[in-house]
């Protein structure tokens, strides 16, 4: 796979640089000050290829804190809110689009036995 640094970057709109945090894999975004944040609102937004390239180059070099840095599209609302630019990024930001599994109501029999044991 071509490294993000070797790819010819084409920007058709605003972008951010995103990755996963090394310690726990959480979705993070590159901030303008060189740090990382889990809040998309705090991400550095690039609107041209040169600044996107610079942002991702610095992010990839920060291998100790984040892994798999890449450029992701975003959209900006009129009041400047940053929103994910596609479904994949929406899911990365907000989590699965489905409810995570929960236990159905246990019958009293199983519940009592389980709790008695534990």
């Amino acid at each position, binding site marked *: 796979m071509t490294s993000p640094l070797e790819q010819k970057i084409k920007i058709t709109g605003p972008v951010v640089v995103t990755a*996963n945090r*090394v*310690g*726990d*894999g*959480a*979705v993070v975004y590159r901030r303008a000050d060189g740090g990382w944040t889990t809040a998309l609102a705090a991400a550095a937004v690039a609107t041209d290829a040169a600044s996107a390239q610079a942002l991702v180059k610095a992010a990839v070099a920060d*291998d*100790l804190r984040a*892994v*798999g840095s890449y450029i992701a599209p975003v959209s900006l609302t009129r009041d400047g809110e940053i929103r994910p630019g*596609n*479904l*994949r990024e929406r*899911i*990365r930001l907000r*989590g*699965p*689009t*489905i409810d*995570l*599994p*929960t*236990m*159905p*109501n*246990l*019958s009293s*029999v*199983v519940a009592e*036995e*389980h709790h008695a*044991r*534990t």
Partner: protein
Amino acid sequence: MYVYDDFDRTLVAERVAEFRDQVARRLSGELTEDEFKPLRLMNGVYLQLHAYMLRTAIPYGTLSSTQLRMLAHVARRFDRGYGHFTTRQNIQYHWIKLEELPDAMAALASVGMHGMQTSGNCVRNITTDQWAGVAPDEIEDPRIWAELVRQHVTLHPEFSFLPRKFKIAVGSSSHDRAALRVHDLALRLHRNGAGEIGFEVMVGGGLGRTPFLAKTVKPFLHKRDVLSYVEAILRTYNEFGRRDNIYKARIKILVHELGAEAFAKEVETEWHAIKDGALALDPAGFAEIAARFRYPTYAQLDDSPPELAVARRADHRFDAWVDNAVANHKVPGYAIVTLSLKPEGGTPGDLTAEQMDAVADLAERYSFDEIRVGHEQNLALPHVAQHDLPALWRELDAIGVATPNVNLITDIISCPGLDYCGLANARSIPIAQEITRRFRNPELTRNLGRLHINISGCINACGHHHVGHIGILGVEKNGEEFYQITVGGKADENATLGALIGPAVPYAQVADVVEDIAAAYVELRQRPEELFIDTVKRIGVEPFRERVYATR
């Protein structure tokens, strides 16, 4: 159950210690991600959309209650309280933290479990029929042969860096419940004309972007030669398999490009050079492995006890569940019970920690402490006395694993899709959930009969869409989710790849299309007993294509 020995325990414990050191070096910055990635993959650790994912092997789909409770503990302590059973007899945790992975692995290792060979370009965890050892139509327990092969290939230096991953399945029944033909290598125990038991050897199956069914390269292989023949196949693959193009690196491409006959000739040449050497079957070693698989001491019981008939007459829900989820056992008076992990609106294959604990308790009380995991993403209790079925059903029903939809249209195989997976182009789970809602009426699903829907969120085909009676493949078109629909695939002893019915449809129309296909089938079948897959075979794809696209 398989009884682990000191060698197994030491191997797994040493791997945990090694990985703990590797994680520490990664977190300290001593290892870069490029250096660390192959090490984590050797232990089943992936990085997905939201977090790391830990894939843990469930050898031959066999679990003890103690092991299942440990899976529950890991889900609760290190993940978000649930696990996902996959199509290869694994469990995946989707929210694992790298910092905590060594402790999670140590917990798993305490019950003999690990993630070795669940990823990477090695021989992956070998799979079998989830009814191994209890199926009435079985010739021998295939797990013993699978374990023989597993012991030979685990950490084998020659096979640790294959051109690509290598999946082996072993079957032993007339009905294939292990999807043998979609594996890189499949071994099927059967009897030849002289009544001897040996293996049919099939090579070069696989799904993904270039699906192939495995070809038989040796119709009958004597048992004594199984290791040498597997070795010869792996060596041939290692020598000729492509390493220059990841999309052409699987053995299926090699078998296809060389031709099965030419491939088999290469294997035979290699095999004849080694077959009478150290790899010829050692009966004592084999007996030692066989002795590690312990079977319950069954009571002497009669089939169809009167109390079962009374209970069936008294409760139509119980009666419907027995019809659907209970299968014959090779021992009189016992049954194999499938636990559906496909409730209405649920995620196929997911189980909460509390459900795991409850199933473990039930297995202890009703199934000689044993649980099985099948590639259809359901569980089974393999040794249930038939007279216990009414009591067991009430408890399974209470924990949500007694939906009577086994092998029916809502018993959907689904990959995690874009909700979790970094490779996916489209979501799978919400599609499956919507279909289960559309077909929530049990009478409707029963009327449709056996009908398998398989869903994959990308071309890698973890959801086995090519071999679904109805296959659904998620693709991305201009940033939107679209789905290609196939019909006519199947993964059993008459395995077939499904045929595309037409252009991909948008996300919102997939469940409508499935309803259209189901309605067309009901109209087109010759009689109610004609299964969907047989109707497709008889009339082809065209009538379904017409029905689906007539108004689209």
